[in-house]
C-alpha cells in the first residue's frame, strides 16, 4: 500500500485529496508556489515544499521539479488532481521512470485519449458510437466539402489537441467553412502548438452526460452511473447533478456498458470519465474521455457512497476495486454548484481578493469542498473556483430545495461570487422541471441576470440602518481613541491589580 502521497495541485482538490489520505493513514505532501504559502492545502498537509514562483508554468506545471521534490521527501506516489499535469502523458511517463507511482492511468492511455482524433478512431474500432465527422485531420477543402455534405450542416471544427473551447468553430453556412477552418487551425497552433483540426456534426439541443469509470490492474472495470453536466456557460460546467433528469433507466444501462467498453479499449486503469453527447431523441455519442478525477466527482460519491480518491489510491497500490458493479446503487439525488470568485453581473469578471468573512452552510445533506478562509487572499494566478457546494436529497426536488437553503446560508464577503447567479438558476422553472440542455444558460441569461428589482424594500432600509449604525459607531470610536491612549498607563496598572486579586 502507498505510504506517502505528494499532491501536485492546489486549491480545493488538493485539500480534498489530503482528506482521503488522512482517513487512510497515508502521509500527505503539499507543494506551494510563491502565491500559495498561506493556502489551505499547505496548512493542512503533513508536509509542504516550495516549488517555484506564482505563474503555473514555473510551479504547478514544472513536472521535473515536482518529481525532484517527490524523490527528496520519499513520496512513493503523486496525485495530480485535475487540471495542471493531470492529463500530461509525458509527466506520467517521467514519474514511472523515477520510480514514483502516478495515481492515474498508464501514460499510453492518456496519450491515446488526449488526442481527439486518435481517441475517435479507438472508439470506432471498439464499437463505441462517436459524433459523425472526420476520422483524420482536415486536409484539402474538396474532401471537407464531401464530408460536410454527407453529415450535413451545422458542423463544428475542433482542435485535435484541444480543450476548453479553444480552436473550436461552429459553422452553420457552407460559405463560412473555409475561413472557419483557417481560424481554428491558427488558434489551435497558438494554443496547443499543433494545428490539427477535425470536423464533427453539430448536435442541436444536446445534453452533456458523462459516466464515472473505475478500473483496476486486475482487469475489473466498473461504472458509477452518470452525471448530467448540461448547465454550462461557454463550455464551462456550472452545475452538475446525478441521476440525470433526462436519461431513462434503459439508456443508463446501455450507456454504462458502452462507457466500460470505451475504458477497456484503452486498457484503462484508475478513475476516469467518459463524456457523451445525447441528442434530443436520446441518441448518444462519445465526446471525449477525461483521464483523471473530475471537479464534479462529489455528486457520484454522495449517491453511491464510494470515496473515489480512496479507490484511486487503492488501485494505484495494486489492490482491487473495493466493490462489485452489482453492489452499487444510486441512493437519492445529488447536485453540485461550483462557486467562483467572479462577478456574474459584470460579464463574469474574475474577482480575486481578500476573504473578509465566510460562513458555510451545514446540516443534513450538505457538503462543501472549498479551500478559502477568513483573511485569505485569493491569488489572481489560478482558477476562480473557490468552493463547491454539494447537496443531497431523497428526490431531485428535495436536493434542489436543500441547495436553495444552502446557497441562502452561504456567505462569502470580500470578493464577488457566483452565489446569487446560482440561486437564480435554482429558481428557474425549466431547471426545476429538469427540462434543460447545454443551451440552458444562454437561453435564460437575461432573466438569470435580472436582479435589479427590489422585492424587499424593508430589507434595503435595514441595510441602510446597518450602515448608519456601523459608520457612526466607528466615528465615535475614533473620537474615543485619544482618550484611551492617554489612559492606557493607568489601565494597565488597574489590570495588574485585578490579576493579583484573581490569582489564587
Amino acid at each position, binding site marked *: 500500500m502507498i505510504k506517502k502521497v505528494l499532491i501536485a495541485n492546489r486549491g480545493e482538490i488538493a485539500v480534498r485529496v489530503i482528506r482521503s489520505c488522512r482517513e487512510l493513514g497515508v502521509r500527505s505532501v503539499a507543494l506551494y508556489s510563491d502565491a500559495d504559502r498561506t493556502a489551505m492545502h499547505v496548512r493542512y498537509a503533513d508536509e509542504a515544499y516550495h516549488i517555484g514562483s506564482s505563474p503555473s508554468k514555473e510551479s504547478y506545471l514544472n513536472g521535473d521539479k515536482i518529481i525532484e521534490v517527490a524523490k527528496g521527501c520519499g513520496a512513493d506516489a503523486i496525485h495530480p488532481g485535475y487540471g495542471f499535469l493531470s492529463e500530461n502523458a509525458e509527466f506520467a511517463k517521467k514519474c514511472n521512470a523515477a520510480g514514483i507511482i502516478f495515481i492515474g492511468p498508464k501514460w499510453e492511455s492518456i496519450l491515446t485519449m488526449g488526442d481527439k482524433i486518435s481517441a475517435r478512431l479507438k472508439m470506432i474500432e471498439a464499437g463505441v458510437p462517436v459524433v459523425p465527422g472526420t476520422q483524420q485531420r482536415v486536409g484539402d477543402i474538396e474532401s471537407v466539402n464531401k464530408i460536410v455534405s454527407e453529415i450535413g450542416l451545422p458542423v463544428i471544427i475542433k482542435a485535435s489537441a484541444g480543450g476548453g473551447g479553444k480552436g473550436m468553430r461552429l459553422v452553420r453556412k457552407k460559405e463560412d467553412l473555409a475561413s472557419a477552418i483557417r481560424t481554428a487551425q491558427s488558434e489551435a497552433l497558438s494554443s496547443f502548438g499543433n494545428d490539427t483540426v477535425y470536423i464533427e456534426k453539430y448536435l442541436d439541443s444536446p445534453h452533456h452526460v458523462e459516466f464515472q469509470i473505475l478500473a483496476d490492474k486486475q482487469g475489473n472495470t466498473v461504472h458509477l452511473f452518470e452525471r448530467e453536466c448540461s448547465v454550462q456557460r461557454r463550455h464551462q460546467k456550472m452545475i452538475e447533478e446525478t441521476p440525470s433528469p433526462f436519461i431513462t433507466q434503459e439508456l443508463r444501462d446501455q450507456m454504462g456498458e458502452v462507457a466500460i467498453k470505451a475504458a477497456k479499449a484503452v486498457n484503462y486503469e484508475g478513475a476516469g470519465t467518459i463524456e457523451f453527447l445525447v441528442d434530443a431523441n436520446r441518441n448518444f455519442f462519445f465526446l471525449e474521455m477525461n483521464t483523471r478525477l473530475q471537479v464534479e466527482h462529489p455528486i457520484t460519491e454522495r449517491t453511491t457512497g464510494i470515496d473515489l480518491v480512496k479507490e484511486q489510491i487503492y488501485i494505484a497500490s495494486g489492490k482491487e476495486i473495493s466493490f462489485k458493479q452489482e453492489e452499487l446503487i444510486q441512493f437519492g439525488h445529488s447536485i453540485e454548484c461550483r462557486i467562483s*470568485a*467572479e*462577478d456574474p453581473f*459584470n*460579464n463574469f*469578471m*474574475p*474577482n*480575486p*481578493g481578500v476573504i*473578509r*468573512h465566510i460562513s458555510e452552510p451545514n446540516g443534513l445533506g450538505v457538503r462543501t469542498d472549498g479551500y478559502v478562509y477568513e483573511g485569505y487572499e485569493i491569488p*489572481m*494566478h*489560478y*482558477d*476562480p473556483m473557490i468552493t463547491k457546494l454539494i447537496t443531497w436529497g431523497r428526490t431531485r426536488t428535495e436536493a434542489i430545495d436543500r441547495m436553495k437553503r444552502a446557497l*441562502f446560508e452561504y*456567505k462569502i*464577503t*470580500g470578493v464577488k461570487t457566483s452565489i*446569487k447567479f446560482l440561486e437564480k438558476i435554482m429558481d428557474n422553472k425549466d431547471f426545476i422541471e429538469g427540462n434543460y440542455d447545454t443551451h440552458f444558460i444562454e437561453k435564460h441569461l437575461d432573466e438569470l441576470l435580472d*436582479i435589479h428589482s*427590489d*422585492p*424587499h424594500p*424593508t*430589507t*434595503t*432600509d*435595514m*441595510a*441602510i*440602518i*446597518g*450602515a*448608519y*449604525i*456601523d*459608520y*457612526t459607531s*466607528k466615528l465615535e470610536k475614533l473620537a474615543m481613541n485619544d482618550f484611551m491612549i492617554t489612559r492606557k498607563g493607568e489601565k494597565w496598572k488597574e489590570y495588574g491589580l485585578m490579576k493579583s486579586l484573581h490569582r489564587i
Partner: protein
Amino acid sequence: MAIDIRIGDREAHVTLIKKEGSKATIKVDDKIYDVDIIMVEDGVYSIIHEGRSYNIEMIQGNGPKNYFVNTYYSSHELDIIDAQSRYQQNRNKDGIHSGDKIISTPMPGKVVSIPVSEGDTVEKGTTIIVISAMKMESEYKSPVDGVVKKIYVTEGDTINGNQPLVEIE
C-alpha cells in the same frame, strides 16, 4: 446625527431619533423604524424590526465610507455621503464633463498587452488595455473619443485593483 446614504440610484436621508442600548429609533427618508440592532460578529449586525429578523453583513469597500452589504436576501453597495464626499462627487462629475478619463480595473491582475501608445487618438470602444486574471483575459475599452494622455503601466506588469492604468483625455 443625520447622514445621507446612497444605494443604487437612491439617496436616503437617515436620522437617529434615539438610541438606548441595542434599541434605536431611526428615520430613513420619511419612514420611522423602531429596531433592535446589535453587532454579533465583526461587521455583522442582527436587526429585529417588528418581529422580523435581519442578518446584515457590512463589508468595508473602497475606503471607510463605502460598504458592501449582504442580507440573506440581497446584496447592495452603499456609500456614506457627507460634505467631503459630496464635494468629491461634484468634482468628479465636472471631471467627466471635461473629458478626463482614467482606465482602471476593479480587481488585481497582469497586463497582457497595451495596443495603444501615448498620443494615439482613440475612439469610444477602442481596446486600450488587456488584463489577465484567473486564467481569463478581459479587454478594457475607451469610454470616450479622445487621446491617450498617459500610460502608467507596461506589458507584463502585475497590477492592483483600482490602480490607474491609462489616462484618456
